[in-house]
């Protein structure tokens, strides 16, 4: 398992290759990448605040839970903070498992929990000013399926 919280960009392709290559015995690798949407040009940038220390603890706990629930060979979470512009990758998750059902379920589980249980807060800096992104009821509801 590997967990990275950083301000700088990451290389989705290089991370995917390294992850898949390292997951010896895996039959299935799933990756998820979250990207800043520019909302049709109205978004100038996004500022991601986080809680150093708790962020790493919360993500590690979510990853431990995923490993307890599914047969995984490896898992990876990379999450950025700070200022990002439209089109930039915010974060990625990767899971490797002998079988695809475990890899998919674990990746979706990690995403659902990262959305609502890892201490990050997004602020959209638009042309008309800045506003904090509100948590969606559907994101909280998504946790109920696990």
């Amino acid at each position, binding site marked *: 398992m590997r967990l990275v919280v950083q301000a700088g960009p990451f290389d989705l392709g290089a991370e995917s290759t390294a992850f898949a290559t390292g997951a010896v015995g895996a039959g299935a690798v799933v990756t998820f990448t*979250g990207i800043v949407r520019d909302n049709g040009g109205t978004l100038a940038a996004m500022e*991601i*605040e*986080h*809680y150093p*220390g*708790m962020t790493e*603890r*919360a993500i590690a706990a979510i990853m431990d839970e995923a490993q307890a629930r599914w047969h995984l060979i490896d898992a990876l979470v990379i*999450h950025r903070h700070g200022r990002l512009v439209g089109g930039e990758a*915010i*974060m990625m998750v990767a899971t490797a498992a002998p079988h695809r059902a475990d890899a998919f379920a674990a990746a979706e589980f990690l*995403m659902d929990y*990262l*959305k*609502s*249980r*890892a*201490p*990050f*807060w*997004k*602020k959209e800096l638009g042309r008309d000013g800045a506003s*904090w*992104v*509100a*948590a969606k009821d559907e994101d*909280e509801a998504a946790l109920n399926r696990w």
Partner: protein
Amino acid sequence: MIEVLYFAWVRERIGLPRERIETRAATVADLIAELSAREDRYAMAFADLASLRVALDQELSSFDAPLAGVREVAFFPPMTGG
């Protein structure tokens, strides 16, 4: 002495990211009441508890949780990562 952290719009309303507070509050709710009585900016930040979350020593917790032995309290809105 307890370390109190604020994030996102809670930080913006209160006007600072963290402070050390001398308190005898027994629970999180007591601490919120104490701070809210202190100044309007706290009262405004803590006005709607349903839109607030609290972490004690970096673990999500609840407003009725006791503060005994806690070194770090953090207040913030629901998380929006991922």
